[in-house]
């Protein structure tokens, strides 16, 4: 689906948190996972800036690991603050999607 970027902007951070929450992972893998999910427009640069923000806000634990090729990779895992933030994201999402659905169904 095209032109999802604007709508995705606010929720992408939550999506990345969810992906990191299920297992420790790195930038490239996160981007691939989002692409496979159907968010074809998401590029690594975007995911990377989100990861930097999560790191700065103290929501993730970062480990540098050597990779087979090239420089070492940064692996990300959620810490307690990150898990709390993820729970908040889903609560907000439930609220938002229920309201929008209600609107679509004619305000019932």
């Amino acid at each position, binding site marked *: 689906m095209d032109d999802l970027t604007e709508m995705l902007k606010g929720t992408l951070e939550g999506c990345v948190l969810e992906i990191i929450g299920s297992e420790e992972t790195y930038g490239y893998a996160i981007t691939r996972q989002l692409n496979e999910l159907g968010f074809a427009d998401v590029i690594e640069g*975007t995911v990377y800036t989100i990861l930097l923000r999560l790191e700065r806000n103290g929501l993730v634990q970062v480990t540098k690991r050597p990779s087979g090729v*090239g420089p070492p990779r940064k692996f990300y895992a959620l810490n307690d603050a990150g898990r709390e933030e993820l729970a908040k994201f889903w609560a907000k999402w439930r609220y938002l999607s229920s309201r929008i659905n209600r609107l679509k169904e004619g305000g019932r």
Partner: protein
Amino acid sequence: MNFWEKVTGSDLTRDWKAFGARVEALPDDYREAWDQIVAHLFPYGDFTGRNLTPILDSALGLLEVSVADGQSVHEVLGDDIQGFCTALAGGAGARTHRDRWREQLNRNVARKLSRLGG
């Protein structure tokens, strides 16, 4: 950074040399993207540009890892390198020249207003 480095900027020269060597190792299209990143990040620099070093280091790190993954630079950065740089600099808490000008302007206006009022 010790006092000597702070005064002479020798640490900056060293950092830039190290960046240069790493950039040399990148493919052509990546090098081009790097030049654009540097150009777009420049306005976020403080007086010496020292605050940009960690930002540039992380951007270069991303490029290096992406080359190793065999991705094209377009897959990694898309068309909006400026937007990427804004997010990068914003994420690192860098302040721009514009922010400082704006603050200065606000201060001057406030001072003039208070003089009028007094």
